[in-house]
């Protein structure tokens, strides 16, 4: 059911008849068989009309009274109705009005047939929602032309409605993405505030220190420097993510020895890991000691994953980094003893908007876009990335890079 029709439901009175709505897949195009209901008390007219419609390939059902017409439409809505105005019992106009009361049948094409030359009846029918009319004596060719014209019109309307619905869906998806981007912005700004707060704070403290008699204005320089490095790392990460997404990041592939690289990364994380008394063990397989990669990008992949591991690790915990050969690839695993990641979040951890969603849903600090960067960076190397984790039992991030 199209949303166009569904929208009319609000505020509509309950229809007296509940109609089953049947739609042809083809929307009733004239070149296909259409289900046509002929409502006509006169046997000769009925015969003539069905003859022409049958000949044109339509699937014709005939009824003789208004009541029978309403029952037939209720049981299975046709593609088009040819409806006589003057009938014993319920008149054609009554039938028309009852059908049009039902929102699902607003667009059912109804052509009135009338032996009356009175323009008042015709005008009344058209006002009540008839699509067209033909006058008796009935001319087969004219009826067929009118029927086809209405069926064509309906097919076009359906196409337009379908496109409208597609557009509405696309709009919704775009609006959702736009909302995600908005949240992403908020998350990024949020993340930038902490280092900015500490930098500005320590600058202010430095000024106060300077004003003191025995103050040491250099006392806070390391803290300011650390804040700036954090900020720089975040900004660089974001810019690189943009480049990776746009496919404009150029990789400088070279053989990279994992041992020295990990020592560098370890030095970079040293402070935080030491503060939490973490032990980081490195076990590099002899046949998995080197990969073909962009050294700087790979270094940042390690920094991001290890930074995350350090953050989630309990005080005094241990982190293990391993590399081993796996087919033509080198597989690296980084295992932490943190709280772990629930199964349902595994897929979202590496996704940009997944991070945003989790940040929106939980009152938690964001884990940033570091892991999103890792996924794109690893994939740019034709590798793959993933994680294994059970809540309460830590987490193992793994990635593979072709040798």
């Amino acid at each position, binding site marked *: 059911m199209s949303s166009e029709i569904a929208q009319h439901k609000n505020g509509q009175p309950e229809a007296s008849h509940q109609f089953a709505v049947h739609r042809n897949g083809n929307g009733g195009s004239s070149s296909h068989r259409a289900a046509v209901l002929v409502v006509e008390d006169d046997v000769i007219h009925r015969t003539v009309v069905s003859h022409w419609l049958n000949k044109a390939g339509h699937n014709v059902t005939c009824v003789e009274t208004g009541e029978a017409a309403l029952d037939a439409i209720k049981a299975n809505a046709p593609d088009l109705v040819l409806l006589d105005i003057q009938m014993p019992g319920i008149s054609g106009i009554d039938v028309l009005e009852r059908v049009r009361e039902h929102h699902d049948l607003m667009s059912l094409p109804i052509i009135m047939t009338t032996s009356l030359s009175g323009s008042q009846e015709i005008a009344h029918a058209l006002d009540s929602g008839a699509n067209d009319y033909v006058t008796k004596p009935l001319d087969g060719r004219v009826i067929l032309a009118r029927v086809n014209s209405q069926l064509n019109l309906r097919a076009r309307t359906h196409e337009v409605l379908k496109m409208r619905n597609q557009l509405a869906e696309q709009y919704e998806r775009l609006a959702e993405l736009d909302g995600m981007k908005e949240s992403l912005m908020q998350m990024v700004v949020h993340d930038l505030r902490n280092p900015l707060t500490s930098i500005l704070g320590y600058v202010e*403290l430095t000024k106060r220190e300077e004003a003191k008699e025995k103050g040491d204005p250099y006392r806070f320089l390391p803290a300011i420097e650390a804040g700036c490095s954090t900020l720089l790392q975040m900004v660089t990460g974001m810019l690189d993510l943009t480049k990776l997404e746009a496919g404009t990041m150029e990789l400088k592939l070279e053989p990279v020895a994992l041992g020295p690289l990990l020592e560098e990364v370890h030095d970079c994380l040293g402070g935080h890991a030491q503060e939490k008394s973490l032990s980081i063990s490195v076990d590099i397989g002899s046949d998995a000691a080197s990969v073909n990669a962009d050294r700087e990008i790979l270094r940042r992949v390690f920094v991001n994953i290890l930074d995350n591991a350090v953050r989630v690790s309990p005080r005094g915990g241990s982190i293990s980094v391993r590399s081993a050969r796996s087919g033509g690839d080198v597989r690296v695993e980084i295992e932490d003893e943190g709280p772990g990641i629930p199964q349902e979040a595994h897929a979202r951890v590496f996704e940009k908007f997944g991070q945003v969603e989790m940040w929106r849903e939980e009152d938690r600090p964001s884990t940033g876009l570091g892991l999103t960067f890792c996924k794109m960076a690893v994939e740019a190397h034709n590798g793959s990335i993933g994680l294994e984790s059970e809540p309460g039992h830590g987490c193992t991030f793994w990635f593979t890079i072709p040798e």
Partner: protein
Amino acid sequence: MAERILVVDDDEPIRNLVEAVLEDEGYEVEHAESAEEALSKSGRWSLLITDYRMSGASGLALAGALKEEDPELPVILMTAHSDAATKREASQLGVRAFLAKPFDLDALVADVEGALRFRQDRTVNRRRAGSGDGSLEQAAGGGW
């Protein structure tokens, strides 16, 4: 007796910054990197300064838990971004002040002084009102 202030933030530089500022002002400061660590510390606090979003329990949850033991404990909430709903929830819990990151150190000190003074005034008023009157005590408890 020096005022004991508990500072809770999972961001180490911010924690150290707030601690350095307040120690400079002559307060006794303890810090924790999570709500859980904060709750494991013993003793009575004159004031709680906590970040809102942290790994594990939030700053508001921490404030609620500490206020169960000490309903008059003043709380200052540090946030990088606070929406109306958070502020409402916070004020229902009796959060004394919001410090939006990045914050001015003078504003931090002023908020801390204001919160501690308010607590002292309450204590003095309650003593003046006499020990048998529970109504004022209750009113004071709800105010924070």
